[in-house]
């Protein structure tokens, strides 16, 4: 059974559907990449899956149909979404961000344990626990956004362009973290990225979107060898 199963998704803004007939699956503990050029509909896809955008088609989480649930309820059901850009609550402190992340968790002891765990993983966040999230650097904010999302103990984590605006070394650190989250905690990860090269290094499979639908799918290995992918996304002249 897939952790996330999307079937026949269609969504858009106003009368025009930006995404049409899109289907994808993410296995348990699997990292899947959603690639595509600007305007292909990647962000729209994630927003529809998380319920922030009205859509048709169905979304199943661990076999349970969540199509009729609001975005907030989908978060409660185990679907975490880190939106593009600053995914943090900028006017709130680091600690408040993490506690907001655990809003759907009712077990207080678990919240404190998770807080300690993420502070352990990111000592920099612990040092800045009383600072406003908006005052952190871009890399620290992205780390906070991931920790915040993980505080909800999700089954599926969706990241929209996590590397946007980050230095290459920080991006590498971030991708290692995402890989560890999937491997060690069994969380399924769906990443939307421009940086196809690095994404295909950690992803098991990928979908390539064009004009609002999936044009191509395959394992990361096979896509890396694909001449069209190399030309379009990997900067390789074939």
């Amino acid at each position, binding site marked *: 059974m897939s952790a996330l199963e999307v079937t026949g998704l269609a969504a858009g803004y106003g009368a025009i559907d930006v995404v049409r007939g899109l289907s994808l699956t993410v296995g348990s503990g699997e990292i899947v990449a959603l690639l595509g050029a600007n305007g292909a509909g990647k962000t729209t896809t994630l927003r529809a899956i998380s319920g922030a955008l009205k859509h048709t088609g169905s979304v199943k989480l661990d076999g349970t149909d969540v199509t009729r649930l609001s975005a907030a309820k989908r978060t409660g059901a185990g679907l975490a979404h880190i939106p593009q850009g600053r995914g943090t609550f900028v006017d*709130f402190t680091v600690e408040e961000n993490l506690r907001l992340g655990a*809003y759907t968790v009712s077990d207080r002891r678990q919240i404190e344990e998770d807080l300690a765990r993420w502070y352990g993983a990111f000592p920099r966040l612990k040092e800045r626990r009383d600072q406003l999230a908006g005052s952190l650097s871009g890399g620290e904010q992205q780390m906070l956004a991931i920790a915040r999302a993980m505080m909800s103990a999700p089954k599926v984590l969706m990241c929209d362009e996590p590397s946007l605006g980050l230095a290459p070394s920080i991006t590498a650190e971030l991708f290692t973290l995402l890989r560890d989250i999937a491997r060690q905690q069994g969380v399924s990860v769906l990443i939307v990225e421009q940086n196809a090269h690095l994404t295909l290094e950690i992803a098991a499979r990928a979908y390539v979107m064009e004009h609002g639908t999936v044009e191509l799918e395959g394992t990361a290995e096979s896509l890396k060898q694909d001449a069209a992918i190399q030309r379009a996304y990997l900067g390789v002249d074939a």
Partner: protein
Amino acid sequence: MTLVWQQIVEGLAAGSIYAALALALVLIHRATRVVNFAQGEMATFSVYLCSQMLIWGLPLYLALLITAVISFILGAAVFRLTIRPVLDAPPETIVVVCIGLFIGFQAICLWIWGSDSAQFPRLFSSTIWTVGGVRISANNVGILVTLSALAIVLALVFRFTRIGLAMRAAAAERAKSPYVGIEVETMLTFGWGVAAVFGFIAAALAAPSLFLSPTMMMSVIIYALAAATLGGWDSPLGAIVGGLAVGVAETVGTTLIKSIGAELRLAIPFLLIGLVLFVRPQGLFGRADKARV
């Protein structure tokens, strides 16, 4: 000098009432970017309900408690039925809805209870203490204590509780809040309910001296709008400081400058506000350059 102290005490008591209503306005503005002109009229309606319960023979404090609960439901219902459908509409639309609510609630009070002023009992005893020549009434002290207690409870709830954090998040980041599992509309509904309770408390404190009538809160809402502008529309603390400052400026100003007289006393706080806003357009405690998308 005693006279000035006397006016400061009177001003603080009046200012507490402005502050409570300003707090209601700021809570709603922070959450929904709406200036609810009808807040005072909604509050008047609540006080009429309370007064009706007193006529039916309920004890004062029980009637106040029941009315506070009804006010919460009323505020929540007003948001759900009239504001939520136009929340994403241009500001002009929302202003018109609020004016509609203003006229509507005033008309309902007029229709049910008529235009004659009615008595509303004081919430505190009529004892008066004299401290160094300044007369301090238990009623004024009660008003100040009530406001302080409410402000402290509100601050603690916002700062330390899960629902307080969620309400602040829903107000500050409407788009991101669902991603942590917060139902934004539920929080906004809750915020409108809490604001209506604060409005009711302001009106219940004002009613004994203003006398209960459908237009009772019209002057108070003007001072409360001034207080919120002075303090900054994003700041609950600003609403309280602004309310007290407007109250004191009004009484002390009228006393010190004899030529102002009763007719012009409304102008004093606005002169003060004009000066403050000239220096700090965002208000005393407001934040500058805050464009929300």
